[in-house]
């Protein structure tokens, strides 16, 4: 029976739309996963050297052990965002004559087979045998490594429980935010050093097997916690909560002036707020507004005259992030109800124009929200004005036209992290012109004349694009109209 379940699971992976529809994307993702894990391993191999040379600490072991707790806290946070819950699979097994406990054991076990489980192992194994082994003996190396990995894997089960219970609620976010504050705050302000509290546990594991046994107990306990929670709640209604109607009357009033297109822009706004995937994109856009702090405040990027060329990229990112991210899946967002627009008079045209309106609207908001960066210098504001104009004048058309290349359907109720539904080759290739275009205009002028002339050129081209908007937007409309049958038939397919 278990073998059969595993076989089904493999089939599902191979035949899932994200993989089967685009082999190139699958290869790219596999490559990406291997690459990232390779980085982790490389970091692990050089961990000893980095601590000793990079941070100039003499006792690499003591430094790492007192730092471990932060690693786990950090792991807790990335697991919260990345780790997938196995409940979606539950639905298709629940009605079969298989024991519920067995299904849940299987699903939990299945969730453990993931690159995330390898991270701690890859990162700390080299260290255990380069540093811990030679200094404290090979028993210590194994025992220490086992404690570290068991702690990391306990988090896996804890997260399954935590995320299922609190996801999408303010409580979960509050805990995450609290943990973030705790990690950075406590050590920074010197209230207490969390690391020194946890270090003795790992020190003990060097000489005794008791911590390993205890942590194994914790590991099993966490597994049991997750198992029990899933077992008790293995009903469709419990695991898939019905959403309450929220933000009912939130609309952009200004869109009402644009007729049918404005009406559809408002609809799109509701769509964004009411689906999990698009909500995450929106949150990310808000988050990326802070992106500038990394660059503008960093003395490393300070130049004696003018500003760093990199800032143009940062500026175009900040003022256009939502457009870039949301726009790359342009029509896929409407894949579930594309027929609705097709069947209305002028519906497709209004749909495309409505999206234009929405993108311009969000860009304006992002731009306005980024104005406080003027604190870091007037040139930042100029950069933002230039890149904003360029985004709404030129980039917007590039994103939309590229996204219209073979759009794919997707399910909006799944999370956005590591969800490649609707993503095709176009979405990856899109990055190149997005990053290249501003520089193609800016750099020649900046290098020959002056950086500010470069910005002016960027702004002028953007403004010209805005003037040509009625013409340029028609290209996308025409493209959608011409391909409407292909698009709608691909959207009608089951995911």
């Amino acid at each position, binding site marked *: 029976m278990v073998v059969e379940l595993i076989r089904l699971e493999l089939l599902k992976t191979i035949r899932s739309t994200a993989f089967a529809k685009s082999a190139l994307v699958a290869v790219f993702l596999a490559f990406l996963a291997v690459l990232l894990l390779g980085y982790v391993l490389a970091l692990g191999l050089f961990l000893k050297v980095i601590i000793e040379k990079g941070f100039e600490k003499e006792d690499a072991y003591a430094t790492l052990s007192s730092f471990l707790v932060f690693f786990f806290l950090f792991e807790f946070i990335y697991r919260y965002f990345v780790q997938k819950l196995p409940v979606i699979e539950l639905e298709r097994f629940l009605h079969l004559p298989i024991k519920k406990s067995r299904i849940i054991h299987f699903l939990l076990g299945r969730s453990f087979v993931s690159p995330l489980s390898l991270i701690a192992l890859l990162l700390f194994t080299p260290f255990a045998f380069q540093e811990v082994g030679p200094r404290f003996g090979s028993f210590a190396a194994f025992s220490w490594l086992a404690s570290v990995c068991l702690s990391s894997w306990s988090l896996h089960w804890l997260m399954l429980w935590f995320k299922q219970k609190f996801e999408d609620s303010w409580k979960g976010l509050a805990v995450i935010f609290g943990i973030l504050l705790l990690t950075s705050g406590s050590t920074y302000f010197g209230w207490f050093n969390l690391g020194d509290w946890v270090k003795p546990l790992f020190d003990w594991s060097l000489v005794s097997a008791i911590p390993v046994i205890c942590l194994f107990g914790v590991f099993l306990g966490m597994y049991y916690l997750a198992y029990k929670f899933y077992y008790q709640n293995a009903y469709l209604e419990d695991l898939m909560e019905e959403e309450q*109607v929220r933000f*009912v009357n939130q609309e952009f009033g200004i869109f009402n002036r644009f007729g049918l297109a404005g009406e559809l822009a408002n*609809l799109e706004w*509701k769509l964004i707020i009411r689906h999990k995937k698009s909500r995450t994109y929106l949150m990310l856009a808000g988050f990326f507004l802070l992106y500038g702090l990394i660059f503008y405040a960093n003395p490393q990027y300070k130049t004696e005259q003018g500003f760093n060329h990199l800032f143009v990229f940062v500026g175009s990112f900040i003022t256009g992030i939502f457009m870039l991210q949301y726009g790359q899946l342009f029509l896929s967002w409407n894949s*579930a*109800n594309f027929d609705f627009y*097709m069947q209305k008079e002028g519906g497709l045209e209004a749909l495309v124009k409505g999206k234009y309106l929405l993108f311009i609207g969000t860009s304006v908001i992002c731009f306005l929200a980024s104005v406080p960066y003027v604190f870091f210098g007037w040139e930042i504001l100029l950069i933002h004005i230039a890149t904003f104009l360029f985004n709404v004048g030129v980039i917007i058309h590039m994103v939309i036209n590229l996204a219209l290349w073979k759009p794919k359907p997707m399910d909006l109720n799944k999370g956005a992290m590591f969800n490649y539904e609707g993503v095709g080759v176009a979405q990856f290739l899109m990055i190149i012109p997005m990053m290249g275009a501003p520089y193609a205009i800016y750099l020649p002028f900046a290098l020959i004349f002056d950086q500010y002339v470069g910005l002016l050129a960027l702004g002028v081209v953007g403004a010209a694009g805005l003037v040509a908007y009625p013409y340029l937007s028609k290209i996308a409309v025409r493209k959608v109209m011409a391909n409407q*049958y292909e698009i709608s038939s691909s959207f009608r397919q089951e995911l």
Partner: protein
Amino acid sequence: MISVQGLKKQYKNAVVLDVEELQIPKGECFGLVGNNGAGKTTLFRIMLNLVRPTGGGVLLDGMDVSKTENWKSRVGAFLDEHMLLSYLTPDEYFETLRKIYKLSVEDLKLHLEKFQELFNDEIQGKKKYIRDLSKGNLKKVGIAAAMLGNPEVVMLDEPFENLDPSSQVRLKKLILQEKSDRQVTFLISSHDLNHVTEICDRIVLLEKGKVIKDLQEKEHMVETLNSYFGT
């Protein structure tokens, strides 16, 4: 009103639809029956210009549906949930349609009043997204939306499916009422032979994409269909 000529739809080598000629006059209630995969939904989709025919075309009052768009406000349709905006509540959805069809608030109210009996207090004023409604209620929303804006033609795919028996009767009443009041042309596909023979003046039987029977006389409909389906 609707005229189909030499219509053909082919996926690679498989011919899924092959209708030589079909004329549907104004005010007719046109029933479409056939086994699964006979091409009923495909025919509707081509009539609505959602799918491109391989050959031939559909004319609505002499205009090719794939060439123009202004016929769209005169034709209402509900084929499946792709034609709904499932992330809205029913109230929001009707309100959106009202704006798209440029109706007054009063028009919408009058329209929905006709559906009060069918809705059975389950649709309006509820804080529930359409995607969370039961299948039957979802169908009711779709049907009410298809008939909004005084369309001259209404296409419904399996309208009786998933409805409870009393709702089925109410829907039949509604369709007959609309037909006699405003001369609406109905195109209805259904597996429920009793309902479809009761309300339709004419029934076309599709088999593997071909029209094999065109029944216009009420007396013989039930008999012929029963013998065809073996019921």
